[in-house]
């Protein structure tokens, strides 16, 4: 009797031991998340393409917002209604931006994700090797991979005067080398523009637009790098009058940060010179969109581009391409340069200029490319920095990167 009981107990234990394993494995699958390897299929490529673009949009609005604050385009005023982020003030003053400034984290971290999503899409699409969205996926991966590297090179730096970024936990890559990497990516993207699906995209709607846009991007990289000859070659193949702008897109769910921070609240305001432009020529209001904010006896100017949650932001327009051409031909063929500028002006109903010098070109860029993050690199390139030496001309590579990346070691605040 005893032996039987012992036997039963032992069998019960064994049964329990094995069935416990099966029991705990039997859980409902996740509904809101999916494992990486289940996305390795041609019909998931469109989902991945949209993810890259989504990440682009969520970092781009913040990026150009901070770039505006760092430059002389936007400024912080503690008296303005709703201004409260000391991190934004710190960026505006630029004299001592802490590396743990969490507004900078708010751009640097998603930029890393954008770069990863883009590179990851290339790798994945290459290994899948088939499907109707294959070319679209490869184009997206290369294009946005190039764009991410462009952003590192243009907007971030290790020290106040040293621009550049980091890829995948590696060493610091100075701007010049980073632009080369961006160009490499954009160049490869040009090999993948033969894609019918462009017609269904909300942002890049045809093969031709894809090609011209990519050339404009390459031109911009060369221009900011300082290689005028290469820049000119690509700008000539870039966007043309009539091309739709390439923009980052938003919705009520994933909204444009400018709507909240530079409209509902006034964390940054637009420099007064923009009002002066309109005073000098009222037609400038067609492209310099601003409105007045008043509080008691104080008043400021605020941007009027992004007044709804879903307002898109320009990233490259045919007008910008024209201005690049103008800049590149300024000394060698001033008349042609002037024509480029006037083409841009005409598109906004503005009277043409009669002469064009560097100062006028800079002013044109200031007005045309307002709120798209161009002012910061322009101030550096044209040596018109508005603050004393020793201030930050780039957004600092963040403390999170330094803490986790042994190749970067910088001292305390």
């Amino acid at each position, binding site marked *: 009797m005893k032996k039987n009981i012992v036997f039963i107990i032992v069998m019960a234990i064994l049964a329990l031991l094995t069935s416990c394993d099966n029991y705990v494995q039997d859980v409902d699958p996740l509904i*809101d998340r999916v494992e990486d390897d289940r996305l390795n299929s041609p019909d998931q490529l469109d989902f991945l393409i949209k993810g890259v673009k989504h990440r682009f949009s969520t970092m781009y609005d913040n990026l150009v917002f901070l770039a505006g604050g760092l430059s002389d385009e936007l400024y912080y005023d503690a008296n303005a209604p709703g201004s409260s982020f000391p991190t934004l003030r710190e960026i505006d003053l630029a004299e001592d931006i802490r590396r743990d400034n969490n507004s900078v984290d708010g751009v640097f971290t998603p930029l890393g994700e954008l770069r990863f999503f883009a590179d990851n899409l290339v790798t994945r699409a290459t290994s899948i090797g088939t499907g109707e969205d294959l070319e679209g996926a490869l184009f997206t991966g290369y294009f946005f991979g190039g764009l991410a590297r462009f952003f590192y090179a243009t907007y971030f730096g290790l020290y106040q005067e040293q621009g550049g970024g980091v890829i995948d936990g590696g060493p610091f890559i100075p701007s010049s080398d980073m632009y080369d990497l961006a160009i490499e990516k954009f160049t490869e993207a040009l090999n993948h523009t033969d894609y019918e699906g462009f017609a269904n995209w909300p942002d890049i709607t045809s093969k031709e637009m894809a090609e011209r846009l990519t050339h404009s991007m390459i031109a911009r990289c060369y221009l900011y790098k300082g290689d005028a000859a290469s820049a000119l070659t690509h700008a000539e193949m870039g966007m043309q009058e009539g091309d739709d702008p390439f923009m980052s897109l938003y919705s009520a769910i994933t909204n444009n940060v400018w709507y909240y921070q530079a409209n509902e609240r006034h964390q940054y305001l637009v420099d007064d010179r923009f009002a002066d432009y309109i005073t000098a020529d009222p037609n400038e209001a067609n492209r310099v969109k601003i409105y007045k904010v008043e509080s008691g006896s104080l008043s400021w100017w605020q941007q009027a581009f992004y007044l709804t949650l879903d307002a898109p932001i320009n990233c490259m327009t045919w007008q910008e391409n024209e201005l690049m051409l103008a800049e590149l031909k300024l000394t060698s063929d001033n008349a042609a340069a002037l024509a480029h500028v006037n083409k841009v002006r005409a598109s906004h109903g503005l009277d043409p200029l009669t002469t064009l010098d560097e100062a006028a070109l800079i002013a044109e860029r200031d007005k045309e490319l307002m709120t798209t993050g161009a002012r910061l690199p322009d101030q550096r390139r044209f040596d018109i920095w508005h603050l004393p030496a020793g201030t930050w001309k780039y957004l600092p590579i963040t403390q999170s990167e330094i803490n986790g990346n042994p190749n970067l070691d910088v001292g305390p605040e």
Partner: protein
Amino acid sequence: MVKKLLLVLCIVFTVSSLFAVDLKGIVRDGKTQEALSGVNIYIAATGIGTTSDEDGYFHLTFDADKDFEITFEYVGYKTLRKTFSPTEDLSKLVIDLEEDIFQTDAIVATGLASRTSKSVAEVAVARVQASELTQMNTYQSVNQLVTGKIAGVQMKPSSGNVGSGFRFYMRSGGGLNGDEQPVIYVDGIRVDNAQLGGDYVGGQGVSALADLNPEDIEDIQVLKGSAGAATYGTNGSNGVVLITTKKGKITPGMGSSMAINYKMNLGYNEQWYKYSKDKFVSADDANANFKTGPIAKHSLSISGGNQSIKYFTSFDSHNEEGILPNNYMDRKSFRGNVEVYPHEQVTLRFGGNYVLNEITRPQNDNNIFGFLGNTLLFPQSYRFTDSLAIRRIENVLVSNRFIGYAELVYSPLKNLEALVRVGMDQSDLREDTTFPPGLGYALWPDGQRFIYNRNNKQFTLTGSLRYETDITDGLHSKSLLGTQIFDRKARTSTLQGQDFSTELISDIGAAEDVTAYGEGKIHQKDAGIFFEQTFAWQNQYYLIFGVRRDYASTVGTQAASIWYPKASLVVRMDKYDWFPRTLNLFKLRAAYGESGQLPGLTDGIPLLWTAATGGYGAGAVLSSIGNAKLEPERVKELEFGFDAEFLNRYAFEFTYYRQSASNSIIGLEEPPSTGLTASNRPFNIGAIEGWGIETMLQATPVKSQDFQLDLSLIYNYQTNEVTDLGGAQPIFDGFDVNVIKEGLPKHEFYTYAVLGATFDDSGVYTGPDVATERSSFGNPIPTNTGSFSTNFRFLKNFNFYFMVDWASNLKVFDNTGVFATRFGNNPEFNRLATQLGIAGGGPGYVAYFVEPVEGVEELTPGTPEYKAAAEKFATLDWRYDANYIYDADYLKIREISLSYTFNDLLKNVSAFRYIRNLTIGFSARNVFTFTDYPGADPEVNFAGSRSLIRGQDFLTLQNPRTYNFFVQLGL
């Protein structure tokens, strides 16, 4: 053949020697000779039993063929076991019971399903007799029953709002993995202890424990570490809290076995720390928001029983308001516990608790809509949100919750007991937030609505088999085999919309824009098998060993599983003949156990993607980063100690413990350039060691009919050190102040020190001299904690209770101070800046927000006054966190109460003879705090209970001072 014959003879002989036993007698208190009624009298071997009546008499009849042992059991007295022979005269027994002041015979849990008494428990027993506490005092929430009453356990609210979350810290904090929070069982059912709240109101979540009514609790036991909690498996590595609710008792007298209890409690909460104008320019505005919060609590319980059934039912209504507007809790709780004995071999228990809880929360912490954020940061208040607009923000959580269990105990054979317990904790929560339109809220001036729903169901099943036998004379064996299964399903959904055309219609469907929507679903299971074996020699030496095998769900990888062993030894020194009689108990104990944390549900999956919607439709973005090579963490604990009782009036308990965790799982931030930042990646980064001591001294120097003095003193020491991070970089919290780093205790404040002021050649202050390397600034977890309490019963019916608790060697980072200084709200900083000539101009970190102070003269550089001002100014520089880390040692007069029992007076009045008990009392809580900390309260944490951030004060709300008046009536 001979054997068979002998057997037959034995049986015949036995059968023919069957006696009819007629047992009669009286049970008394050994000291006073007072009769004791309601004493449980039974024969363990057969289960036959009875209870003594109101005069202490008992009568039991049965048949017996040999000697039998009778057990006399009564709460507050030591259990007596006496052997009788059926042939002796049993008609006039006089049984005297000895008092059990220190409850050494009370049944305690020392592991899952194992039950023993404190007199032989192998681990330090941490037990609070809650039903006694609630008799003499009144408590608003469960943590108040634990604070200062158990050695080695800290249970703190994470904010001062009503219904706030709790944060536990046991011993030296266990392993590194997880959030240091123990698992909570109520009546053997694992309950949800999540920090709730889908909408952001700052760091204060609402605890699921806020649903538990303190009046329903019989006792709370805590297994503090792996040595005790090993049989709970992975859930036990941060400790296990076992809450038992009241069950029916046979309460004799008045001819009825039913007891009705009604308790009414009225009181109020008030602000005790007033912000001062010396620290904040805007102090008056901050103080103006505070109010007193009334408390009204009514509890009614009906309990009773007889030989076949015992029951306890209660209804409780609790209404409490906090010290800031828009914070209240309205809780209704219903409970019924039943115990049935349908057969002498079977006990059936079942019960249920249904709670309806409505809590509203004020906006606070890191929040532009908060009361404190709008009155403590800037010298001009309400810059972000207007004061009326803040008050109009509504945040309401309504939860209804049911916790129910059923338990069957079956003893088919004399020494075999089978137990099956099944239970469920099911809760439904709905949270609504409303920002009415037209009040100018930044971000959503046209109003916003937010709805969050959470449904959580968790199911616990425990089955165990217990077998006891005497292997030889004097060697007793107890074997326990069991299994435990846990299954949890949770579903959540959120919806957020903004921009309403009119404030008259606030239905979320009227919002112009939907700005967030989503749902979530979690399903997880744990299962374990455990075995425990006890050998007891002569009731003096005990050897216990056991093991548990644990499993948990993981999605996508093999189910993680692990073995956890335990072993312990107990020696009752007082049983030696040579041992001095004055020490009526001296127990040496040593215990070892292992437990730990299994990887979380999705931790083993390298990359998880989710869908994010925006301007392009729904696209794939990363949701979490995992680690396929993840292994379970293991926490080992060794504890030694002794329990002593002296002259039956003094008790002393001492425990030394050592915890060591290896393969601790902790999330590491990948550098942003990798793009793998959707979550921290879990790693087994290494090891942490902790050790400490716990001591408790209890004394009852005076005990008579009219006077009794009970004293209790607890002292704990704990320390820990991260010994190995496996080569990883130190891990900082999001604010770069608390760190996990080799060679330091966890959560240590580790930042750059400010060494003094620097000056240029003309003597002008040029900024602080800052260290180039980080250094340690102390720890937010105190090294020394303790409490002292006294209960003094005088003039027979008055009861005075006083408790003080303290903590020393801890620090708090005053982030409120940092921001206030930064925004120009620090009068001293402003004055010094004016004296140094840098207010209103000069470097940005000062000039931007600090205006020159009227009437303050600028000092001349180079002069001693200037230098002194500069040195002081350097220590207030808000850019360096080290300047705002303060000593936060504290001593709190935690509880004072005075009550009077009318029972004697009532006995003399015939009209009141049905009243069994009438007590009236007053109490106060958080009466006074002595502390070095200059901020509001050294006990709050702005990031709530669940993060790497510890000991940071950022606009959190202080714990209130509370006054109560209560009346307790028993029929």
